[in-house]
C-alpha cells in the first residue's frame, strides 16, 4: 500500500515536473522572441487568433465570417486559435439537423459523459472529464444559465433551432474579455444564438421546419432575421415540440426477456426568443435578448421490478432577459457591460402521494406538489486593455443575486449574493500563447432557518500555455492548470432538515497537457486535424448525500476524494473526390476515475459511478450536390452504477448506429427546401445510460425545412 502510494506520488510529481518544465520552456522561448515579434507584427488582428464566441460583437464574429466562405472545407478549426482544448459543433455541421436538443450534439464530444435518463424528457446533464456535473457551467451567449437549486443545467431543455454553435471548453473560454463568472467553473459549455449576416441585398433571412417521428413526436420551428436599418437587426425564433415518448424497451437476464412500453414519458416543450442587435459607427455594439420557455412532462421514473408505471409530473417555465453593451474606448481599451434577469419556475407533483398542508390555519389534504421559484439577477462589467500589441489585460467584476422560494416545509426561502472579480491576461509572443487569471469569489448565503449569514471567500488561479515550436510545422503543444470550486447548491443546503452551515465547497484541480496538429491541402485530401490531450484531475471535498436516521432525510456532507486520469483523442479529416465530399470525425476518451475517499474501505480505488474507461464516437458525413448523408456511431464502455463496483452495479457497454439522409431542392430565388430522414439506433439495441432508465430503441424522424 505504501509503495503504491509512493508510486502515485512519484507519478504526480513527475507529471508536475514535466508540466512546469514545459511552461518554463515556453516562457523562455517566448521572452527570447518577444522583442522581434512585437515589432514585426504590430497590426496583428486579434479576432483571427482568438476563439470566437463573443456575441456582443455580432458583426465582427469571426465564426460568421468563416461560415460565409466555403462551408465545409475552409472552416478553420478552433484548435488553431484556441489555447485550451476546445470542441465546437456548429449549425453548418451536417449532423446538426438530426438533433432535437443541445444534448444530442454534446454526446459526440470527447471527454464528455452525457448522463441521459432516457427519452426526450429525461434529464440530460454532462460530466466533463469526470469532475462531476456541478463543475460544468453552461453559458448562453456568454452569460450563465443559472440553476442555484441544484447546480446542473438540463441540456434537454434547449432546442437547436435558435442556436448557431455549441462549444465545450475543457478549461474555460480563453477569450478573456468576458464576465468573471466565466472563469469560475472547471469547464464550460457555450451556446451561441443563431445570427445571420444581413446586408442591403439580403435584408432578411429565415427558416421554417416541421417534422414528425416515432413515439408521437411532432416538432416545428420558425426562425427569422431582419435588418431594420444600417444599425439594427432583429431576430425571432419559436420552437415547439411534443412527444408521447411511449417507446418499447426490453430487459433481460438471459432467462426472462421482458418488453414493455415506456409510460408517462410525454413531453410538451415550447420556447421563443427575440433578439435585437445594434452595431454603431463608433464600433460599439448592443444586444438585447428575451427568452421564454415552457415544458410540461411526465417523469417516467426508474424501471424496477413490478413497477413499470409512474405518475410524477414536472411543469417548468423559464424566462430570461439579457442585454450586453460593448464599446471601444480609444484604440486600446474596450468595455463590456452585461445584465441578465432570470426566472425559473418548477412544479413537481406526485398524485400517488397524499399529504396534509397547513393553509391559513386549516389542514388540507392534497396530492404532493412542490413549487420552486428562482429569481436571479446578474450584472457584469469587463474591461480589456491592450498593454502592448499581443498583450491584453482584462478586469472583470460580476454580481449575482439568487433567490429561491420553495414550499417543501414552508420555511425555505434562501438567497445568495455572489461577487466575482477576475484579473486575466493573454499574451501572444510569436508562436507562444500564454493566458492566466486569478479569480476572487465571495459568496454570502442568507439562511432563513437560523437567520444567519454565511460568508465564504476564495481565490482561484488558472494558467494556460500553448506553443507551436516550428513555424512550418502546424503542431502545437498546449497545457493548462486550473483550481476551481463549486459552492453547495440550495438543494444541498436546504433540502435536508439539518442545518448545513458546515458544508464546504467542492474543490477541483486540473492538469492538462496536449498536442494538436492541423493542416489543409488543396488536393483530394482536404484537411486533417489531430488532437491528443492527457489530464489528471482531483476532486476534493465532494458533496455527497448520506442518509440519517430515516431514509426520507438525507444529510449532505463533504466526503470524498476522486482522482481522475484521462486521455482524449480527436481526428477529423475531409476528402473530396469528383464532387463527393467526405467529412469524418473520430473521438476517443480513456478515463481512469477512482474513489480515494477512505483507504481500507470496500470502495477505495473503485471506479467512480458512470465513468466508463473507454468511450468514443465516429461521424461520417457524405455530401454530393443536393444529397447528404450522415452516419454516426457512439460507444460508451462498461461502467458501474454505484461507488462499489460489483456485478450488481455493473452496467454493460452500449453503442448506437444512427443514419440520416437529406436532399436539398431549390424552389425559387433564395427559397430552398430540404427533406430530412433519419433512423436512430438502427440495430435497435436496448440499453441504459443510467441504470433502470431505458433508452429508446430504433426510431425514425422525417422532416422538411424551408430556408428563405
Amino acid at each position: 500500500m505504501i509503495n503504491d502510494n509512493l508510486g502515485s506520488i512519484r507519478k504526480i510529481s513527475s507529471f508536475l515536473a514535466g508540466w512546469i518544465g514545459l511552461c518554463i520552456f515556453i516562457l523562455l522561448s517566448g521572452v527570447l522572441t518577444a522583442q522581434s515579434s512585437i515589432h514585426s507584427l504590430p497590426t496583428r488582428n486579434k479576432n483571427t487568433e482568438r476563439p470566437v464566441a463573443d456575441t456582443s460583437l455580432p458583426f465582427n464574429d469571426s465564426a460568421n465570417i468563416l461560415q460565409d466562405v466555403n462551408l465545409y472545407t475552409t472552416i478553420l478549426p478552433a484548435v488553431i486559435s484556441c489555447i485550451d482544448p476546445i470542441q465546437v459543433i456548429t449549425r453548418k455541421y451536417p449532423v446538426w439537423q438530426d438533433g432535437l436538443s443541445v444534448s444530442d450534439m454534446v454526446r459526440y464530444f470527447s471527454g464528455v459523459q452525457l448522463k441521459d435518463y432516457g427519452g426526450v424528457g429525461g434529464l440530460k446533464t454532462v460530466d466533463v472529464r469526470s469532475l462531476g456535473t456541478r463543475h460544468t457551467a453552461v453559458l448562453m451567449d456568454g452569460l450563465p444559465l443559472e440553476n442555484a437549486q441544484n447546480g446542473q443545467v438540463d441540456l434537454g431543455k434547449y432546442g437547436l433551432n435558435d442556436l448557431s454553435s455549441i462549444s465545450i471548453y475543457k478549461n474555460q473560454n480563453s477569450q478573456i474579455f468576458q464576465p468573471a463568472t466565466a472563469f469560475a467553473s472547471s469547464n464550460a459549455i457555450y451556446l451561441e444564438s443563431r445570427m445571420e449576416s444581413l446586408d442591403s441585398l439580403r435584408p432578411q433571412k429565415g427558416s421554417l421546419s416541421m417534422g414528425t417521428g416515432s413515439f408521437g413526436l411532432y416538432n416545428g420551428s420558425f426562425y427569422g432575421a431582419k435588418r431594420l436599418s444600417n444599425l439594427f437587426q432583429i431576430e425571432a425564433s419559436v420552437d415547439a415540440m411534443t412527444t408521447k415518448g411511449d417507446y418499447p424497451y426490453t430487459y433481460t437476464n438471459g432467462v426472462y426477456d421482458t418488453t414493455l412500453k415506456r409510460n408517462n414519458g410525454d413531453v410538451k416543450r415550447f420556447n421563443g426568443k427575440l433578439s435585437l442587435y445594434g452595431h454603431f459607427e463608433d464600433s460599439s455594439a448592443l444586444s438585447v435578448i428575451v427568452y421564454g420557455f415552457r415544458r410540461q412532462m411526465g417523469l417516467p421514473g426508474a424501471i424496477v421490478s413490478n413497477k413499470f408505471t409512474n405518475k410524477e409530473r414536472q411543469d417548468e417555465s423559464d424566462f430570461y432577459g439579457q442585454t450586453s453593451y460593448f464599446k471601444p474606448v480609444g484604440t486600446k481599451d474596450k468595455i463590456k457591460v452585461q445584465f441578465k434577469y432570470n426566472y425559473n419556475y418548477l412544479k413537481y407533483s406526485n398524485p400517488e402521494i397524499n399529504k396534509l398542508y397547513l393553509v391559513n390555519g386549516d389542514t388540507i389534504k392534497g396530492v404532493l406538489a412542490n413549487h420552486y421559484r428562482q429569481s436571479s439577477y446578474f450584472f457584469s462589467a469587463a474591461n480589456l486593455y491592450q498593454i502592448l500589441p499581443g498583450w491584453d489585460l482584462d478586469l472583470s467584476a460580476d454580481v449575482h443575486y439568487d433567490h429561491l422560494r420553495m414550499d417543501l416545509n414552508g420555511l425555505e426561502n434562501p438567497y445568495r449574493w455572489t461577487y466575482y472579480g477576475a484579473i486575466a491576461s493573454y499574451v501572444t509572443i510569436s508562436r507562444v500563447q500564454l493566458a492566466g487569471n486569478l479569480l476572487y469569489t465571495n459568496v454570502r448565503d442568507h439562511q432563513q432557518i437560523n437567520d444567519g449569514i454565511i460568508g465564504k471567500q476564495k481565490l482561484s488561479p488558472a494558467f494556460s500555455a500553448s506553443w507551436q515550436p516550428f513555424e512550418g510545422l502546424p503542431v502545437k503543444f498546449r497545457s493548462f492548470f486550473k483550481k476551481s470550486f463549486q459552492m453547495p447548491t440550495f438543494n444541498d443546503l436546504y433540502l435536508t432538515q439539518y442545518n448545513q452551515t458546515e458544508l464546504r465547497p467542492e474543490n477541483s484541480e486540473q492538469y492538462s497537457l496536449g498536442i494538436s496538429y492541423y493542416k489543409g491541402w488543396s488536393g483530394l485530401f482536404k484537411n486533417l486535424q489531430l488532437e491528443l490531450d492527457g489530464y489528471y484531475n482531483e476532486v476534493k471535498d465532494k458533496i455527497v448525500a448520506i442518509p440519517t436516521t430515516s431514509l426520507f432525510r438525507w444529510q449532505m456532507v463533504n466526503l470524498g476524494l476522486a482522482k481522475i486520469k484521462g486521455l482524449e483523442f480527436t481526428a477529423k479529416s475531409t476528402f473530396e473526390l469528383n464532387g463527393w465530399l467526405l467529412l469524418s470525425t473520430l473521438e476517443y476518451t480513456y478515463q481512469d476515475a477512482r474513489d480515494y475517499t477512505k483507504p481500507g474501505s470496500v470502495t477505495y480505488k473503485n471506479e467512480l459511478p458512470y465513468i466508463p474507461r473507454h468511450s468514443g464516437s465516429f461521424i461520417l458525413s457524405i455530401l454530393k450536390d443536393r444529397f447528404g448523408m450522415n452516419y454516426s456511431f457512439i460507444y460508451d464502455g462498461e461502467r458501474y452504477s454505484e461507488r462499489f463496483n460489483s456485478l450488481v452495479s455493473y452496467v454493460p457497454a452500449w453503442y448506437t448506429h444512427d443514419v440520416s439522409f437529406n436532399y436539398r431542392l431549390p424552389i425559387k430565388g433564395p427559397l430552398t427546401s430540404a427533406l430530412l430522414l433519419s433512423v436512430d439506433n438502427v440495430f435497435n439495441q436496448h440499453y441504459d445510460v443510467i441504470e433502470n432508465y431505458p433508452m429508446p430503441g430504433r426510431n425514425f424522424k422525417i422532416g422538411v425545412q424551408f430556408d428563405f
Partner: protein
Amino acid sequence: MLMAGCRKEVGVIAPETTQLMNPGEYGSGMDFYLLNEGNMGSNHCSLDFFNHSAGTYALNIYESVNPSVTLGLGDVGNDIEIYGGKLYVVVNGSGKVEVLEKGSAVKLCQIEVPNCRSLAFWNSKVFVTSYNGFVGVVDTSVLQNGAGSVQLDKQIAVGREPEGLAVAANQLYVANSGGYSPPLYDHTVSVIDLNTLSVSKTIDLGINLNDVQADNYGHVVVSARGNYAEVAPSFYVLDASTGEVLKHEQIPVGNFAISDSILYYFTSSYQANNQKVSYKRYNLKTLSAIAGSFLTSNLSEKIQFPYALKVDPKGNRILISDAGDYTSPGTLYWVDMEGNVLWQVQTGEIPGHIAFL
C-alpha cells in the same frame, strides 16, 4: 456490430458464498435470511442467507433461485418475516410482498400492495401496512405456488403512513407516522380488533411513530421518531390488552429488538450524524434501563451507521448490521452476549432486516 464483442451482459448473477466458520461450529443457532434494502430507484434489493450448520454466508441468493422473475426481487426491501412454511419479503418500491418457500427461497407468488412497509400475522391472515393509509389483509390459503399476483382481501383504513405493526392480545397495533407531511406528523396508534378486522380504538401517543413490537409479558413497545429537532425520539410501553400507556421512556431509540424480557436498542443520532450512538438494553419486566453497553467500545466505534438488530432466539447471539454510508455494501456482525465479535461479513446495500428460519 464491429464492437459487439465489447458488450458484456451480466446474465444471472450467482450468489457469493463466504465460509465464516467451520461446519458445525455455530452451535445451537439458527439459519437466517438478511434483507438488504438497496437504494431507492436502484432495484438493488437483495436477499442473503446464513446456513448455520455449514457456517456459510451466501450473498444475493434471490436471482439464482428465481431467475425468471423480471428484474428480480426489486426496489427497497422493507421487511422480512417467516410465518408457517413461507418467507414473506416486503418490497416497498416494487409495491409487492414476495411469498417464497421458506427453506429454498423459491417464489410461490406475490401480494400486490402499493407502498407496502411492514408485516404481521395472525391465524391464517397476513397483515401488511401501506403508506397509502391502510393495513392490507390476505388469507394465506390463496398464497399458493403459481397463484401469480394476489390481490388483497381487505384494506383496513388506519392513520397516515402507517409503519410498524404487531399482534398482541388478539389485537393488531399499528403505528401511524404521517411521514409525508412534516411538521404535521401523525401521532396515533390504530388498534384493530382481529376478530372483526376493524379499528376498535385509536391511541394518541406522540408524533412520528415508527416501530411496534410485542413481548411475551403482555407489553407492546412503540417507538417514536420525533421531529428530528426539539421533539426527540422516545418509546412507549403499552399494556397489550388495554392499550394503556405503562411507561413513556425518553430514550432516543433508533431500532430495537426484543428477546424474551430484554429490549435491545441503539440510540438514534437524530440531530446530526456525528452524534454518538449507544447500544443498550432495557428490562421490560421491571420497565427499567439496564446499565452498560451490549457492544464493546471497539465495535461501537467501528460501526458507522447501525441498522438491522436482531437477537438469535436459540443461540443467544446478537446480529447487528452497519449500513456504512448507504451507498456501498454494509457489514453484518455476529456478537455474543459479552460483546465479542465472533464473525463479520460483508452484506449487500443497506442490510436492514433479518428473519430466522
